[in-house]
């Protein structure tokens, strides 16, 4: 209600709006509890509610889901999607590439205070087409250097119990991998061809900036 007063929202309207916002944010039952007893996720949801009490057309949100539990993060993301669908413009700053990919129509990548790219997430991903990769796991341990020597492999990364092999021609690499496993007597447990992620695009674009500098 304080925020409503500070934004000049009429008290009747503020009461109505705060109740519907608290309900939408899953906080209505705890409305009488002191905020210091709230979890981090609840506090973050409350802050979003405070920002929405004046029904702004443009929202600036700084890492709205950072460090939150899965449920709170999902609730906030769903709310942001519905606000955006309702016509509100949302500026979101985040380090979470997955979140940016899920929520944003346009993504600007800022490196050292300078905007290095701005486009739709899909177009940014496609702009770094050399970053296709094949994610593979084997039945036994494998020397990554052996994998790096396979034809058309640009880079090898160990990701948990899997290996991610970056390439420009994933089809050729899959054939090479199958032949290699047959030769050395290994079994493939799983194999996925991955398109470049927004994170890959971010890394590629920011690395390019560093090289130019």
């Amino acid at each position: 209600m304080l925020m409503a007063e500070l934004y000049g929202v009429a008290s009747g309207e503020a009461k109505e709006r705060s109740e519907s916002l608290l309900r939408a944010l899953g906080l209505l039952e705890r409305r009488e509890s002191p905020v210091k007893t709230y979890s981090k996720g609840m506090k973050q949801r409350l802050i979003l509610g405070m920002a929405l009490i004046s029904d702004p057309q443009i929202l600036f949100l700084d890492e709205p889901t950072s460090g939150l539990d899965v449920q709170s993060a999902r609730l906030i993301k769903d709310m942001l999607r519905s606000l955006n669908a309702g016509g509100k413009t949302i500026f979101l700053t985040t380090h979470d590439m997955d979140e940016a990919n899920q929520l944003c129509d346009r993504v600007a990548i800022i490196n050292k205070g300078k905007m290095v790219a701005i486009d739709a997430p899909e177009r940014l991903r496609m702009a770094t087409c050399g970053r296709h990769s094949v994610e593979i796991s084997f039945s036994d341990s494998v020397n990554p250097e052996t994998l790096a020597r396979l034809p058309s492999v640009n880079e090898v990364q160990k990701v948990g119990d899997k290996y991610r092999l970056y390439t420009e021609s994933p089809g050729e690499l899959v054939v090479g991998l199958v032949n290699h496993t047959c030769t050395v007597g290994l079994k493939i447990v799983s194999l996925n061809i991955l398109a470049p992620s927004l994170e890959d695009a971010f890394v590629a674009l920011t690395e390019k900036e560093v090289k130019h500098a």
Partner: protein
Amino acid sequence: MPETALVWQQMRRSVAIARKDIRIYYSKGPVIIFGVLFPVFLFLSFTIGRHMSVDFMIPGLLGMILFFTATSISPIVVPWEAQARTLERLMSCPVRLETIIAGGVLASFAFGTAISLVPIVIGLVLGVSVSGPVIFALAVILAALCFASLGNVFSIPPTNLPATVNMIASVVKFPVVFISGIFIPLDELPAWGQAISYISPLTYFTDIARSCIQNRGHLPLALDFGVLIAFTALFLLVAMKLHQRTMPRRI
């Protein structure tokens, strides 16, 4: 929006900020008890055994309680809020900095005025009579506003540590109590003592209170009121101008 409507809008918002401050910082049992007990015990420690009349004690006690309560919490609200990062949220709202400061002053003023009723009621119960109750009430209100404004001056240094601000406030508050005619009436002070006492706003309130309760004012009432108004205006102006400079360095 026309200028008068804008002023009215900002005034309403400063009242909202004052209500928030009272709810969060002032209406706590320990704050209220400390607000009353600390000046009472400080006063008693200087008066017990000196065979003073109730008529003499009540104006001094009232002056001390009003001064200490109206300047107790206001200096630390801004650093507290800056530390809790709620100040930046407040500053991002459509409120002017003057509105935030006015809200702080209003909360402190309400707290000081409410707590000052304690020594007034004690005095009335003990048989103290007040001549000119309207003048007396006006003096309490004006002094509360003056001290509340001074409280906001203490929080100007751009530190977010409440302990530092408290230390700065204490360095000013304690000497002020000793030079303001609370323990020794103005007319009993030597000339140099009187000269020093005139730099304290508390002197003028104590003088009005003594005039109303003891019929023993040292200065003309119009002068007391005039100087209190001038101090209030000065403290408000200084608080608003200098917070303007230091506030951005807090966030």
